[in-house]
């Protein structure tokens, strides 16, 4: 299978502006900082991480919804980083997005018909009235909405139905790639399952390629063939879903997995929790060396603080449990000591939560150092 999406050393840095009349750039938020990944045709790639780790920015950068600072993104061999204007617009037919909040991503004054036809028209797929009509029915049918939905407006639908409309809109132009950014996190559990099943059915029927971004590890594990775990702008571990969840190698992945509550008291009582202390450091002033060293229970002196680990293929990782479908399904980890930790040579130690130091890096008289990601994004 060939790669549909190629991302090489992608960086997206948002400038932090400060000043009344002249915007001075006082620093950068390193939202995505050196990510390389491949997504094969027809597979589902899951991206997980906590808020502020840059997973949504990565998804948006992939579709060129945000400008790239450096690096290369290619869809089906076409380099998007150099595209502008009309050629880029034409490429957009092949890549679509499903957003998190179905109500705010649907135009409240547009009926479903207008919403679906708009995309068809923009890409010249609206050839004849009958063909369009047939296509609309086909779309509604695919996502499980009645034909009567065409005349109605977003507020007339429930959350799950709205998400179905969002999916129908993404499907309308026959894309190759769908980036689904938290597709079910705004929905109730009983409805979540309906939408997840729908996404899977559509993939099987239409041969779509998905990039599923979510903070819910169980959702990603359920959907994805391969999973990448992001922490502060970088991918720290990437593996076939089964291998990642079965034998996580990066300390952060271990902590993340052990933090997810399992709806089974028997498992919950037995399970050992690996609690991380402290918060995600600010992406405007990421820690030196390994980004995770400030919270890592396996941190070793000097090397972890100084040298940023590369994402490297790790030996001896168990077989990809079928999810990789025969292709090279590699287990890649960005940790200096992954093997030693795995072999039990290193013991976890206590980490004291670090107080975010004041006024670092940002140059002269910055606004008070951002305490959290939300605050940085709010600026």
């Amino acid at each position: 299978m060939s790669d549909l999406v190629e991302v090489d050393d992608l960086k997206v840095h948002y400038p932090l502006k400060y000043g009344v009349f002249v915007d001075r750039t006082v620093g950068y938020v390193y939202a995505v900082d050196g990510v390389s990944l491949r997504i094969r045709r027809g597979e589902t790639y899951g991206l997980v991480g906590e808020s502020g780790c840059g997973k949504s920015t990565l998804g948006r950068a992939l579709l060129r919804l945000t400008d790239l600072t450096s690096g290369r993104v290619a869809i089906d061999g076409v380099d998007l980083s150099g595209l502008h204007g009309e050629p880029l617009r034409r490429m957009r037919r092949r890549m679509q997005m499903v957003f998190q909040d179905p109500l705010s991503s649907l135009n409240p004054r547009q009926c479903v018909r207008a919403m679906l036809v708009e995309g068809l028209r923009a890409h010249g797929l609206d050839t004849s009235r009958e063909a369009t009509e047939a296509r609309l029915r086909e779309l509604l049918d695919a996502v499980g909405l009645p034909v009567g939905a065409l005349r109605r407006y977003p507020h007339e639908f429930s959350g799950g139905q709205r998400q179905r409309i969002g999916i129908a809109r993404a499907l309308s132009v026959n894309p190759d790639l769908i980036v689904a950014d938290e597709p079910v996190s705004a929905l109730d559990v009983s409805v979540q399952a309906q939408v997840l099943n729908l996404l899977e059915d559509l993939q099987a029927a239409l041969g779509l390629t998905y990039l599923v971004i979510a903070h819910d590890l169980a959702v990603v594990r359920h959907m994805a063939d391969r999973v990448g775990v992001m922490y502060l702008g970088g991918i720290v571990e990437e593996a076939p879903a089964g291998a990642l969840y079965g034998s996580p190698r990066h300390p952060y992945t271990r902590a993340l997995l052990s933090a997810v509550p399992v709806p089974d008291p028997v498992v919950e009582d037995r399970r050992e929790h690996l609690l991380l202390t402290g918060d995600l450091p600010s992406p405007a002033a990421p820690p030196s060396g390994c980004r995770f060293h400030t919270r890592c229970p396996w941190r070793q002196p000097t090397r972890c603080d100084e040298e940023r680990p590369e994402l490297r293929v790790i030996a001896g990782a168990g077989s990809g449990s079928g999810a990789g479908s025969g292709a090279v399904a590699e287990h890649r980890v960005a940790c200096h000591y992954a093997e030693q930790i795995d072999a039990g040579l290193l013991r976890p130690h206590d980490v004291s939560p670090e107080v975010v130091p004041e006024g670092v890096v940002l140059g002269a008289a910055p606004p008070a150092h951002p305490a959290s990601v939300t605050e940085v994004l709010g600026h």
Partner: protein
Amino acid sequence: MTDQPLLEVRDLRVTFGGTGRRRRGDSPPTVAVDGVSFDVSPGQVVGLVGESGCGKSVTSLAIMGLLPKRGVRVTGSAMFEGTDLLGLSDAAMRDRRGRDLGMVFQDPLSALNPVVPIGVQVTEVLRRHRSMNAAAAKTEATELLRRVGIPDPGRRLAEYPHQLSGGMRQRALIAIALACRPRLLIADEPTTALDVTIQAQILALLAELVVDTGTALIMITHDLGVVAGLCDEVNVLYGGRVVERARRHELFATPRHPYTHGLLGSIPRLDAPSGERLAAIKGSVADNLAWDSACAFAPRCPRSLAECTEHTPPTEEVLQRLLSCHNPVPVQVRS
């Protein structure tokens, strides 16, 4: 359990609208909570679980007396150590809130006052209820913040909510709720706005505090995973009613109500084999019927009978399990 329950909620009913003069074109009153009864014993963790609109938050707000007076009718009783909380005057309730009853809200940023430093918000409770002077309250507040795991508490006291991260804000809110060692703490989706690693920290903190202080906890959540690890007893709410209640091991091992059963089947699980298809519950809450002549869940229920749309299911309590269903899932179904 032999000892007297700390809180006894009986037949709690909350209706929005329909209290004033009815005019033509008014929408009919909405029954948000429709006869909820449960007990909380001292030191016990009781879970209220359900999806949005099931009435779990309204239940907690009614117990705390935080619902607006206008346009809301609250009936039933909530006996807290012999006094009915629902019958208390505003002034009497103010004395109770913060002292006997603590509450942790879902979104700490909107629950904290944005223009008042954290320290003032913590000491306020201590000075109001424990009549401390400023210096003593400050010392106590520092101790409280340290106890909930906020690093460098002395400095944090002078900071404003926006200067703290989400997890720290939630910790601050817990510190405020626990300032007067309430005997009952109500946590309304305390971790929903947080990331999983922070959620794990907060849940561990709550579990530890409950053990240390003997505070009873009502945990309101939509996340069955949170319930599985924390609660002693779980109430599953649907359409404003408790449809099933059991001790957590029994509930998860043998869910009897089709809704509980469906919920458990529809969550993707970390420990399940991947690629397994989820058993979704069809339809949505909008399909609900009214409880007074049917089972609200009947239109979405895979086991519904003709009877389900005609009669309200009886509520029966067998072997410490409360169940309200005409056609419950047989015990041996789930492996």
